[in-house]
């Protein structure tokens, strides 16, 4: 179950889908108005895009070790990307409010 034009086509289509998701994530960086809406687009869609691209690329690589490496990258990405975006959200939140206890409504609207 290796190679073949059909398999290459499927893997290329999966990679194309991943690229579309990644592109939509960066479009979201421009279409949304503030950091919190933007990280909603950038954090989730680009993770999905990377995973789809890794999946498509994994279908093309013949060595089992390479596919394993791609799997490791996927696991690392799923762990680190949401954590990184969460830290950005925390920093932005504290920057807007000054402290995590203050109610957001007054400062957030004028930000």
């Amino acid at each position, binding site marked *: 179950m290796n190679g073949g034009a059909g398999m290459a086509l499927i893997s290329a289509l999966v990679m194309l889908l991943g690229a579309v998701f990644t592109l939509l994530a960066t479009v979201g960086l421009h279409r949304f108005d503030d950091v919190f809406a933007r990280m909603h687009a950038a954090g989730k869609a680009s993770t999905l895009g990377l995973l789809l691209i890794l999946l498509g690329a994994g279908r093309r690589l013949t060595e089992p070790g390479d596919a394993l490496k791609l799997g490791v990258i996927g696991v690392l990405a799923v762990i680190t990307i949401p954590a990184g975006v969460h830290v950005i959200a925390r920093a*932005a939140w504290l920057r807007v409010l000054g402290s995590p206890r203050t109610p957001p409504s007054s400062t957030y609207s004028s930000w």
Partner: protein
Amino acid sequence: MTETIEYLTLALLAVAGLLALVRVGRGGSLPDKVLGADTLILVLASGVAAGAGVTEDTTFLDVLVVVTLLSFAGTITVARYVERRGARA
């Protein structure tokens, strides 16, 4: 057919990288720039992965692991800096 789709994939990723780069430049606020840079590195990693899949060349897979981890460390470092710095700028 397959080749066209592969080129299209790489082209879309290039456009995505450009959009992320514009966000880093225009910013809006400092966390926006950090988020843009984070997304840019993610697009870069996606591009390297797609390149490895298209060319079936596995040389850069190790680079991919390092880039993923370094982007995490970099994002946390800059976000901590933004947090410490507090208001404005």
